[in-house]
């Protein structure tokens, strides 16, 4: 069985996949996210002028670009093919999830804490990992655990902790940094959902047209 597909074909496949998704899908959800994304991008631009963290909103906007989604989709599909050829038995959903998260973390290019945490937790040794570790060590300075503890209302404290647990690698982060990670993480997750939905739609449409062997009867 020949599994080789050249990269240009894959790229074309993925970009067509995106165009099709943008243009036609009558489903409420993708359309809503697209228009919501545009609206949010505008508001993100307004908000950025009033704060010092303008880099974060441009980073968030980056997750909404088609190029980014295309890049992610092609990486994900490549990873899925690897998973599939590696395990002769059908790939579990967990393997798919992990591949998707890893691909997402790679797409973040190591600029955020959550992406580094995901990459570190996967057991594949890589040069990027050690480089990332070294860079963090060099710039890390021990936070002064303030004797005068910053007074957060206890209601916020608890929710902040929950939020920190939800985002990988952000358990002990102070609130401002945590919020920055959160906004990037949410934008990335949204893209992940969009990309995976599109791929699933295409694949299921394909298996319906009868070109592929029919799925085994349940």
């Amino acid at each position, binding site marked *: *069985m*020949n*599994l080789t*597909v050249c990269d240009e*074909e894959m790229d074309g*496949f993925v970009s*067509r*996949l995106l165009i*099709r998704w943008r243009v036609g899908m009558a489903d409420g959800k993708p359309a809503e996210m697209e228009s919501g994304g545009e609206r*949010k991008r505008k*508001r993100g631009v307004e*908000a950025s002028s009033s*704060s010092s963290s303008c880099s974060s909103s441009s980073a*968030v906007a980056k997750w909404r670009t088609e190029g980014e989604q295309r890049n992610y989709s092609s990486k994900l599909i490549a990873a*899925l*093919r690897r998973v599939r050829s590696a395990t002769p038995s*059908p790939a*579990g*959903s967990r393997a*798919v*999830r992990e591949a*998707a*998260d890893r691909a997402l973390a790679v797409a973040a290019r190591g600029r955020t804490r959550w992406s580094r945490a995901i990459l570190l937790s996967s057991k594949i040794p890589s040069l990027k990992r050690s480089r990332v570790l070294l860079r963090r060590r060099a710039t890390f300075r021990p936070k002064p655990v*303030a004797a*005068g*503890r*910053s*007074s*957060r*209302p206890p209601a*916020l404290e608890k929710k*902040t902790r*929950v*939020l920190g647990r*939800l985002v990988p690698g952000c358990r002990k982060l*102070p*609130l*401002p940094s945590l*919020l920055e990670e*959160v*906004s990037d993480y*949410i*934008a990335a*997750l*949204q893209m*992940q*959902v969009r990309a*995976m939905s599109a791929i*699933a739609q*295409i*694949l*299921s*449409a*394909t*298996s319906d*047209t009868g*070109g*592929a062997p029919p*799925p*085994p009867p349940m």
Partner: protein
Amino acid sequence: MSGRRSRISEEEINELISKLQILLPDNYHHRHRGSSRASAATLLKETCNYIKSLHKEVSELSGQLSELMAATDFNGAQAEVLQSIFRS
């Protein structure tokens, strides 16, 4: 008393948190739709819920994809897909 305030003031925190509202999709704000301000605690809670729902969605999609992968041959499927895309 050194009079040392927390380095980030309360208002700045609230401002940062209110920025999260931009990321949450509209269907998360049933009550506050139209109003530009929701309390910080509400926003944090809704953000947590939203992230959880995104996680859940990714898990479901992973399940779907793993089933689809088993059912379709990636290589044969790819040719079919290219054809269907060119057609539509």
